[in-house]
């Protein structure tokens, strides 16, 4: 069974479309409503998703952790995570599903074929993020912060996400390195709308993420 996991926090505007667009490519769409104050959960349910709701907001990392665990619980064998703001194309899910046949973790990368309209400043920030990830975790990936990923059942069970917030992207990469999962990247399209840009990581969040990672690294 293929399960799509969509972490969502106050995404009532887009989450319905995301669920409807995703359903044709998977068996189940599981939305993690991360303590939203708007109608995210209801909108997702109406669109046909299984909804797991956090009573209070716990952040992206926590939502992904809940989503991946829940997906396993409902019988997911291949788990695809994607963002709730509509920046990922559901049509690209089959790429992940196919790649999961030979790999434990599949990372979507906006940098392999340069599809889509990623703004230049984001592309530059991305490179810095990749370098930092490499220096700290020893794994060179082309898009360390992409939220479009695929996990096999084995990887999903072994994955231990500890950070609640945005550092989760790099934590997943460090887990790949530590556990020695067989991984690969598939090219994805980056769709940037004003909506997704307003929701995405800002420069200050980026700096904070880098700092936290650094502390994390020292602690471990």
């Amino acid at each position, binding site marked *: 069974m293929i399960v799509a996991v969509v972490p969502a926090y106050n995404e009532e505007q887009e989450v319905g479309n995301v669920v409807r667009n995703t359903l044709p490519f998977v068996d189940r769409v599981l939305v993690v409503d991360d303590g939203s104050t708007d109608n995210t959960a209801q909108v997702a349910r109406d669109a046909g998703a299984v909804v797991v709701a*956090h*009573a209070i907001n716990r952040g992206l990392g926590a939502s992904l952790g*809940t989503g991946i665990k829940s997906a396993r*619980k409902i019988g997911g064998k291949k788990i695809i995570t994607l963002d709730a703001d509509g920046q990922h194309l559901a049509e690209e899910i089959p790429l992940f599903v196919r790649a999961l046949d030979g790999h434990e973790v599949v990372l979507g990368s906006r940098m392999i074929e340069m599809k889509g309209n990623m703004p230049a400043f984001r592309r530059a920030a991305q490179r810095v993020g990749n370098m930092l990830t490499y220096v700290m975790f020893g794994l060179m990936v082309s898009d360390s912060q992409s939220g479009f990923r695929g996990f096999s059942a084995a990887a999903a069970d072994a994955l231990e996400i500890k950070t609640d917030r945005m550092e989760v992207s790099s934590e997943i990469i460090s887990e790949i390195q530590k556990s020695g999962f067989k991984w690969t990247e598939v090219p994805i399209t980056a769709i940037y709308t004003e909506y997704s840009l307003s929701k995405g990581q800002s420069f200050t969040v980026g700096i904070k993420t880098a700092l936290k990672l650094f502390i994390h690294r020292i602690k471990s």
Partner: protein
Amino acid sequence: MMFSAIQLLIILFALFAVTRVVIKVRSRSIPMTWATLWIIIWVGAGVVALLPQTTDLLAARVGIGRGADLLVYLSVMVLFYLIFRLVVKVESMQQDMTKLVRAISMKDLDNKKGEDSSE
């Protein structure tokens, strides 16, 4: 024996702090081990305020000119360590909270699995 204003202030505050610690430990709001540490710190502060010369002797031994400086150095060290302990504690509480929120949110997933098999 004459006390300066700052000596008096420190002694009074130390007394006040010790009573707070005692109240807290009696209501079992803080554990005995922490209470002991806090009482040692405050009694120490009171003694030093009362007899400042004692720290000068110590300071000379470790190679610092004035006793007051030695105290400041030690205090800053202790403070930073306590902050570190707090940060670690807060982080682990955050993680516990997430575990709790996650467990509650996943509670009725079992029924949903049942729905699947009937399809």
